[in-house]
């Protein structure tokens, strides 16, 4: 799963000293990391470590308080005018989000729409795609995730694993260049986890750049190019999965891994 790591090509995600606080609570204490094009990065760590918050900063669902975050060379959520950073108008921020797909722990499908409608909603409303084109594309994506016959089903009629696969298809419908996954399998019963991980593995094989917050160490070991361990708002250790999982350097990494492996 190695990708082109040439330094002259702009990385897909670049974080420099990213800080984030919620009121008095500092959740991110200066995150520096880089995700290359076509790379799969897994973020792991105890709950409260800030990994989900960091993920949500990448597509500006959370505001960064200090530092900079770039996606494909473009500053996220702000624009630089002169020497100052001005927050983007919500419409501009929404435009940035079109190219970044996100998959949530609890799927977050729109319950009042069918699977097909969930997938076609954004392309039609946001990209103004004509309906028949959006529907054709949606059907193709449903087949790709193995749910072609569930196009007319409502989320409530589907299992967790099926809902999550549709959520992935929904994110892919916008043709993103980056996919963010926030604990995509944590809310699933174990026997349903495999079908979702399979879809994610397919995506990775196809060259999609992915940042995945997860507890699935097996997935990380098999698919990730980089494994990042976060704790208490900072990156503690990062490297290739075999290195971090088999021979962690930091004490905190060791402690965490011993509890989850």
């Amino acid at each position, binding site marked *: 799963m190695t990708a082109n790591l040439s330094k002259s090509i702009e990385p897909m995600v670049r974080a420099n000293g990213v800080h984030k606080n919620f009121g008095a609570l500092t959740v991110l204490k200066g995150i520096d990391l880089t995700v290359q094009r076509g790379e799969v990065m897994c973020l792991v760590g105890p709950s409260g470590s800030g990994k989900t918050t960091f993920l949500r900063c990448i597509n500006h*669902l959370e505001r960064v308080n200090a530092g900079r975050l770039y996606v494909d060379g473009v500053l996220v959520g702000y624009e630089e005018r002169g020497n100052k950073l001005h927050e983007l108008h919500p419409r501009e921020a*929404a435009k940035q989000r079109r190219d970044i797909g996100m998959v*949530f722990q609890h799927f*977050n499908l*729109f319950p009042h729409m069918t699977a097909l409608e969930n997938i076609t*909603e954004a392309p039609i409303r946001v990209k103004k795609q004509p309906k028949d084109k959006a529907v054709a594309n949606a059907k193709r994506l449903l087949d790709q995730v193995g749910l072609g016959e569930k196009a007319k089903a409502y989320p409530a009629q589907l299992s967790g694993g099926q809902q999550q696969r549709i959520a992935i298809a*929904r994110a892919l419908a916008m043709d993103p260049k980056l996919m963010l996954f926030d604990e995509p399998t944590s809310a699933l019963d174990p026997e349903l986890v495999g079908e979702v991980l399979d879809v994610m593995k397919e995506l990775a094989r196809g060259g999609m750049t992915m940042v995945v917050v997860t507890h699935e160490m097996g997935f990380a070991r098999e698919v990730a190019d980089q494994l990042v361990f976060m704790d208490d708002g900072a990156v503690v250790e990062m490297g290739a999965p075999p290195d971090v999982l088999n021979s962690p350097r930091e004490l905190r990494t060791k402690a965490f891994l011993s509890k989850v492996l």
Partner: protein
Amino acid sequence: MTATQWQPSELQRTRDAYRRSRARRSWLIALLSSAVFVGALVLSVGTSPGWPRVRESFFDLSLGWQDLPGLLRALWINVQIMLITEVFVLVFAAIIAVVRTLQGPVFFPLRFVAAAYVDIFRGLPLLLVLYLVGLGLPALRLHGAPDSPFVLGVIALTLTYTAYVAEVFRAGIESVHPSQRAAARSLGLTHGQTMRHVVFPQAVRRVLPPLLNDFVSLQKDTSLVSVLGIIDIVLTAENYQSQDFKFVHYVMAGLIFVVMTVPLTRLTDWVARRQGWQGSGGGVV
């Protein structure tokens, strides 16, 4: 797996028989105590000194029967007011609810006005609003302002009910989990698109029971427009009463309202039950 071929075992049949006998006993006790209660009520009312006159005045049904054509004709006014008002209320209340959920400092004036509106018109009794609008607006002698009592009645009812229904919509909007908004925004939908296509449709489905409730309430409050002189069903009953000093005319108007309202309340119950029917089956706890 279907339940059609299964038959309960002998043991289960004895259990069910025991439960049935216990249920029968409870039912009999309830029936007996209700009968005693109603009997005592009827006895105390029927033997009271004023009863014959009250019966003659309030419950002379052969007289009341003659009211029906006139009352039903007047009812049409109430129904018209209700339908027109309801349409305006739904539209304005939705707007106000959405305005109140707008975020960002730039919208503060709008939010403030919306909140103030809701506070004022939930505070004012409907009767007062009717007087203020019905008598006050024509007094301003504004050019082009309506002066038909019908229109003024609709305006007053709309102003008041919009405030209540706006709060119901707002509760619905806020009850939609924020993760739905996160999902919509992560797909690139703007706040407006998110609200229109994702949040509001879900909000409306959730608040159908209280919305229907307000609709029932409006149905009855239309009778208050009689204070502006509109000859609705209540004023018609009043007219009949002033002719023969019998109160059965009010009883008839009341009966008509109940008959009109019952289908709507049953519909409300049905909708509420259907919505709650997601999840666990019955239990003993």
